[in-house]
């Protein structure tokens, strides 16, 4: 692979940022607005630095000064609306590439940005001696939809009393949402952060709190933070609120913050954080890199855990009291994750997106080590298996996950993941599920590396990386050294080879540079004559998500005489492997059988094949390949494996295998495991469910009481009266988890009529009835929730006579009992809410199940009321899940609408994300099924949602894309009316060829693009193409290396006029959507001399103005592009006036820009009509007209070029 072999880091920017000041003077909770400024100190690395590109989204920028001089600037965000909103284009391929292009166009890692500042010409001269530039930007945010989240409860009292707070959030690099910056993980600088907040509030941010000073009126105070360690902007965060402060009693430099009234919970939840600290510092032999650490717990968190430099923001729902069992390990895991990311991710940052896997992998890996230490090896191996199963399942289902994508030359053809409906080129285009799997795979691969080079070397590598970084970080004034704090795949691999001396190239090639997993099928035969085990291992490497594996594989064979490891070589054509056996098949000697761990046990070998000494065989027992193994061995072998193999992974594998062997022997093996207290509790829990499955398969021959009943009685019921459960005492967690699980599994039992047996139901009802938690020091809310789940599991479909309406009277007796319990639980929860409202969550699921099974009328209103904002988030999600299910089952358009409206309007980002996620998982219909729901309006609505409605949240937009994909697939939704014929023939566009109905509206109407400035470029292109005439302007555009995404969003046709040959040609050119295309133009026109800087300024400031006009008109919907925006530019590109740019820059007439929009609009129509008529014949006239328009445009441009007037234009927002 062509991984970057060069050592150093090459900045994509013509400057180096060294220091940034962020000062937020005012945070208004009432209005949800923020005002502040930033000051970036940067060193140009080229002479004549004339433009500075920064990232900024949704910020309103008032003024920009460079070294005290007012500087003109352009603000253009192509991701606001990905495709032209009037476009009839509705296929996802089109959208995906447009979106990728839009994201690329502002990608800081490629040196781009939404905000382009023109360095005042006075400073150009300075450029020669590369003097420092200070860029000062004043900005404000009004009701931010992304980046910062305000939580303002609607109650009486001051903001502090209400518990109002605000915090920054985002997926990957999203800092640009709340202040202008270089939003890249690879641009490090030192920071000075100042936040002025209400005196009753606390501002927690990155770095060291130097001092807190009251303002002069003593009503506010300013928090001054200094972050001396070079840090990337995406690792900067802020949270402000009336927090309660807890200084960690073990580590005084660690401070915890929580919302009012939660301090006791915070104290308990944070009481073990110091252990995590100690653990990481010990294994990494490195001190925590920052001088302090802060944890902040906020409501309505975007994700449970997010780590930033020296602070982490958590969901407040992770806090718990000492009474809660189940939440405790989860919270500890979250803390450990956050802390691992402090070292790798915050302190050491990634060099590029392609190197993300290294950092996520390392932090995930050391987090795994913490799990192993804290929760034990069993838990760790169980977790690894779980993660492995997850990634294997995902890749086999959805196609490969690629850790280290390489993009050579940026050509679309090189897309390494053609199976995906999104691009993996940018973090912001990734589907959330994919990203989660990416994280999962990253840490698994780290573990594979560890297997290869040993943990000792692994930790040495980490230590080396950290020491390098901390040396670099202490170089205060040598910013060129700071790139040592960036980690690349190459540097990581080099470090590994230096430290370990081992070549892990093949491993990296297999798992990092390539996507997909391995799928093995194994079977064996025992050859008695040769005393040889003939093992056959086949692979499936043709189906999606699979790859071929060549290399060593470990096989463990447990024989009568002991356990033996064999390493086999998987090669191209060798399927069969002969493994000599050590023991003869003699069993008359009654001796103990040695196990792998040295233990010797007695076994009952009667079930065994008399000829074979094999007890069981395991392929790749250490999970050192990312694989799925389907292995065939006899049921008694699985049973032996379950009983006697001490590895939990082996036990779990055998349990899932035993599901296929419903025999009394399997039953016995499972029951024995269930009873064995030494056995890992999660294995026992899994055994419960397997036992239920087996019992159902054996229903006709089952002897004795229902499965697990007597076991449960023995373990948990009173000796004197076996029908009554003991009063709760959860001091033994293993039996607590078993107590919770067994009823749930038992409820899955079915009798011959496929009903839940009566005595099982009564048993569960008795458990509920006799549940007594008064003497318990732990809360039983999770247990009660599981009992409700057990009731839910016991439900079977109602026998319905015709399609009668469900009424109370014809309610089945058992169901009536169940319903009564659920009603009572749900009502009691209102009076005595349980922790995280677990009981309500279970009840809602139960009600939905009752509805689904036809016991009670299917009705969404209950769920709707619980889904409203203002309920606990878990409850909302459960209610929404029920609604999503209702929508699917009932195919209800109104509910779908209701959900989609909530996606657009809900204040909680997590809930919006969750709804789309659930809709994708449980879609009301799919691309392969027909549904009345699938109609044009829905297509438009979803299109709008992903096109412009979700521009403030990368994750949400990708969720919307996912849903669109699930519902309609990659191509044009089938429910849309067939386009008119004869319009299509676009041979260049491969995707279009696949489905001729994709782009029906192409090829008509020249230059009706309504996008912002990017769209203008597109128009420019189309004109040049049509006229086959060199166009300096479009040349300028391309020459500057402007993102090409504009190119493909050209030429929509509202007029629907018939196609002309010329237009088709134009279309083809328009469709060029990659750098290649731009390059072609460049080549074609490169004879033209052009000052592209000026040209670009012209373009962009034009767009900027229009955008602002638009903002003024419709400030609340920045995602929508105004019709008028681009139309003014229409004539411009078609004008082959070489002197145009000079004209522009020299133009100083200050025309009122206020009427610009309408004016241009008018002209535009006129112009378009004319052009159609005279496109080929009247070029000169055309040009003439264009020139006129050009002037108009210039006027407005000049207007934006003056900062002073620019400000007055934006004055309404200033006055806010």
């Amino acid at each position, binding site marked *: 692979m062509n991984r970057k072999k060069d050592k150093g880091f090459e900045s994509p920017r013509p400057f180096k940022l060294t220091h940034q000041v962020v000062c937020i003077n005012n945070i208004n909770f009432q209005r949800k607005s923020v005002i502040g400024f930033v000051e970036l100190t940067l060193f140009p690395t080229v002479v004549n630095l004339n433009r500075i590109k920064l990232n900024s989204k949704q910020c309103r920028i008032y003024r920009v000064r460079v070294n005290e001089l007012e500087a003109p600037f352009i603000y253009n965000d192509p991701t606001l609306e990905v495709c032209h909103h009037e476009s009839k284009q509705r296929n996802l391929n089109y959208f995906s590439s447009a979106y990728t292009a839009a994201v690329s166009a502002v990608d800081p890692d490629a040196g781009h940005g939404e905000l382009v500042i023109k360095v005042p010409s006075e400073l150009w001269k300075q450029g020669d001696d590369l003097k420092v530039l200070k860029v000062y930007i004043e900005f404000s945010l009004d009701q931010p939809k992304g980046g910062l989240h305000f939580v303002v409860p609607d109650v009486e009292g001051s903001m502090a009393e209400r518990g109002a707070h605000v915090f920054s959030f985002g997926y990957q690099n999203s800092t640009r949402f709340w202040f202008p910056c270089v939003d890249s993980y690879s641009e490090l600088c030192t920071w000075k952060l100042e936040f002025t907040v209400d005196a009753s509030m606390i501002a927690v941010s990155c770095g060291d709190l130097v*001092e807190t000073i009251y303002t002069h009126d003593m009503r506010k105070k300013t928090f001054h933070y200094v972050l001396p360690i070079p840090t990337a902007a995406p690792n900067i965060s802020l949270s402000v609120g009336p927090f309660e*402060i807890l200084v960690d009693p073990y580590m005084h430099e660690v401070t915890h913050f929580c919302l009012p009234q939660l301090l006791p919970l915070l104290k308990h939840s944070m009481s073990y954080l110091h252990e995590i600290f100690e653990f990481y510092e010990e294994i990494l032999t490195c001190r925590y890199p920052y001088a302090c650490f802060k944890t902040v717990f906020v409501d309505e968190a975007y994700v449970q855990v997010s780590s930033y430099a020296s602070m982490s923001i958590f969901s407040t729902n992770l806090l718990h009291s000492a009474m809660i069992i189940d939440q405790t390990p989860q919270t500890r895991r979250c803390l450990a994750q956050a802390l691992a990311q402090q070292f790798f991710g915050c302190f050491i940052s990634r060099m590029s997106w392609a190197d993300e896997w290294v950092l996520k992998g390392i932090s995930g890996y050391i987090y795994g080590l913490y799990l192993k230490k804290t929760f034990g090896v069993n838990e760790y191996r169980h977790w690894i298996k779980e993660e492995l199963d997850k990634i294997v399942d995902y890749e086999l289902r959805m196609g490969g996950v690629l850790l280290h994508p390489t993009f050579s030359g940026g050509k679309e053809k090189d897309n390494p993941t053609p199976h995906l409906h999104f691009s993996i080129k940018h973090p912001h285009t990734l589907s959330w599920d994919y990203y989660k799997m990416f994280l999962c795979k990253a840490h698994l691969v780290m573990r594979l590396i560890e297997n290869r080079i040993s943990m000792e070397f692994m930790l040495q590598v980490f230590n080396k990386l950290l020491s390098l970084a901390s040396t670099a970080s202490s170089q205060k004034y040598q910013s060129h050294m700071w790139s040592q704090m960036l980690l690349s795949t190459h540097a990581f691999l080099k470090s590994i080879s230096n430290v370990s001396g081992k070549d892990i190239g093949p491993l990296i090639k297999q798992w990092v540079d390539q996507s997909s997993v391995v799928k093995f099928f194994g079977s064996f035969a025992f050859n008695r004559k040769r005393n040889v085990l003939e093992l056959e291992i086949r692979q499936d490497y043709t189906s999606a998500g699979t790859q071929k594996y060549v290399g060593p594989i470990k096989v463990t064979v447990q024989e009568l005489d002991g356990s033996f490891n064999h390493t086999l070589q998987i090669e191209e054509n060798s399927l069969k492997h002969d493994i000599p056996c050590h023991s003869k098949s003699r069993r008359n000697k009654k001796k103990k059988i040695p196990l792998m761990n040295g233990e010797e046990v007695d076994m009952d070998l009667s079930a065994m094949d008399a000829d074979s000494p094999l007890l069981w065989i395991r392929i790749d027992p250490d999970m050192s390949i990312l694989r799925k193994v389907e292995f065939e061995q006899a049921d008694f072998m699985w049973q032996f494996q379950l009983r006697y193999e001490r590895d939990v992974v082996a036990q779990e594998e055998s349990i899932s295998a035993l599901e296929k062997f419903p025999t009394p022997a399997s039953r016995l093996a499972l029951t024995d495991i269930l009873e064995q207290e030494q056995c890992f509790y999660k294995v026992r829990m899994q055994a419960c469910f397997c036992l239920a499955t087996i019992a159902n398969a054996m229903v006709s021959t089952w002897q004795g009481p229902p499965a697990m009943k007597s076991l449960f009685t023995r373990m948990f019921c009173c000796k004197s009266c076996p029908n009554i459960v003991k009063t709760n*005492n959860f001091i033994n967690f293993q039996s607590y988890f078993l107590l919770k699980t067994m009823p749930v599994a038992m409820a899955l039992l079915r009798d011959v009529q496929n009903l839940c047996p009566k005595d099982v139901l009564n048993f569960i009802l008795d458990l509920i009835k006799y549940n007594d938690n008064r003497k318990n020091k732990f809360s039983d809310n999770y247990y009660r929730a599981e009992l409700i789940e057990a009731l839910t599991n016991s439900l079977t479909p109602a026998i319905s006579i015709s399609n009668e309406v469900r009424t*109370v009277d014809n309610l089945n007796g058992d169901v009536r009992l169940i*319903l009564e319990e659920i009603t009572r639980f749900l*009502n009691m929860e*209102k009076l005595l809410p349980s*922790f995280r409202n677990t009981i309500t969550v279970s009840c809602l699921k139960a009600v939905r199940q009752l509805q689904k099974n036809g016991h009670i009328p299917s009705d969404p209103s*209950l769920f709707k009321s*619980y889904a409203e904002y203002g309920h606990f988030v878990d409850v909302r999600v459960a209610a929404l899940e029920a609604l999503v299910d209702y929508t699917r089952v009932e195919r209800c358009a109104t509910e779908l609408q209701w959900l989609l409206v909530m996606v657009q309007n809900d204040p909680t980002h997590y809930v919006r994300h969750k709804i789309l996620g659930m809709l994708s998982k449980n879609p009301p219909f799919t691309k392969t099924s027909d549904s009345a729901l699938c109609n044009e309006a829905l297509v438009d609505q979803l299109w709008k949602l992903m096109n412009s409605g979700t521009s403030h949240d990368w994750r949400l937009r990708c969720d919307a894309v996912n849903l669109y994909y699930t519902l309609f697939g990659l191509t044009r939704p089938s429910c849309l009316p067939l386009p008119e014929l004869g319009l299509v023939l676009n041979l260049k566009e491969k995707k279009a060829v696949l489905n001729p109905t994709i782009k029906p509206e192409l090829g008509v109407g020249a230059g009706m693009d309504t996008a912002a400035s990017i769209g203008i470029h597109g128009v420019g292109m189309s004109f040049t193409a049509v006229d086959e005439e060199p166009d300096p302007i479009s040349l300028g555009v391309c020459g500057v290396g402007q993102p090409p995404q504009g190119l493909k969003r050209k030429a929509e046709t509202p007029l629907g006029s018939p196609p002309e040959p010329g237009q088709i040609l134009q279309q083809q050119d328009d469709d060029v959507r990659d750098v290649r295309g731009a390059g072609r133009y460049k080549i074609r026109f490169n004879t033209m001399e052009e000052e592209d800087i000026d040209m670009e300024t012209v373009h962009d400031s034009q767009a900027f103005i229009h955008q602002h006009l638009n903002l003024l008109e419709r400030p609340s919907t920045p995602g929508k592009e105004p019709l008028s925006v681009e139309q003014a530019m229409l004539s411009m590109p078609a004008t082959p006036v070489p002197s145009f740019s000079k004209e522009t820059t020299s133009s100083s007439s200050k025309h009122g820009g206020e009427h610009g929009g309408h004016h241009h609009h008018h002209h535009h129509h006129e112009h378009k009509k004319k052009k159609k008529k005279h496109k080929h014949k009247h070029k000169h006239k055309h040009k003439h007209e264009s020139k006129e328009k050009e002037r108009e445009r210039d006027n407005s441009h000049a207007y934006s070029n003056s900062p002073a007037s620019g400000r007055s234009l934006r004055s309404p927002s200033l006055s806010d």
Partner: protein
Amino acid sequence: MADPAVASGGSLHLGGRGGSGSGGGGSGGKAATSPAENYYLARRRTLQVVVSALLTECGFESAEKAAVETLTEMMQSYISEIGRCAKAYCEHTARSLPTLPDTVVTLVEMGFNVDTLPVYAKRSQRMVITAPPVTNQPATPRALSAGQKRTHPSHIPSHFPEFPDPHTYIKTPTFREPVSDYQVVREKAASQRRDVERALTRFMAKTGETQSLFKDDVTAFPLIAARPTTIPYLSALLPSELELQTLEETDSSEQDDQTDSENATGNNISDDPGADKENSMLPPGGVAPAAKASEDNVIDNPYLRPVKKPKVRRKK
């Protein structure tokens, strides 16, 4: 433990009496209500007669009722004082009954010339007053005989006060032996709690807004309507005061025996101390930041440092 049956019986008895007395008092005003009151009223009436006689002796034809009343009061006070003092003197000398010298000393002490007393007593115009009507000494109400009255043990001199009535210290169980059958107890506790819960939730459902699972019969399974709260995480995360409270309350006496026997049957880990500890760790409502802050003052943490005053702006 006090015998509740006895106690309640007694109070009922008194209550009945009191009720009838107040009925009589409503009409007569001074009507006697109880033996003790009767006793005192009779005394007082005698005293009034005495005062009237003395007034007549002194030559008054008539006297206002209020004046007589005042004089009676004075007289009574005087006599009471004599009695009290005399008793004090007698007790001072370790006796229990006042003797004549005690009274004499008292009178002297009160500035009364004792010598004039015989003369005054033998004066001619002395009016003879009929003896006060015989009223019963207010007997301490007969205690319900409960058990044997205890006599003094040998080491206590007999002049010491007697033991109080046995009912004041004897425990008389009136309830039946509690059912100790574990199964029945658990059964009972469970159904009792279920009934309470059901009644409570039904009540809440009846009095408030509800949601229903059935369209035909909205009363069948009423669900208390879901109401959004402004800060939902508080109730979801904090162990509610009510929850802790009910945990304690339901722990009370009545169930103790049962849970004990239940613990004996199998649940042998006593976690009472644990429960207490947990409660102390989680103060209801849970706000103790002030205490924490003072404790942390020794720690140098930037967030605990006092907020600085703004610098005075220099004049430009």
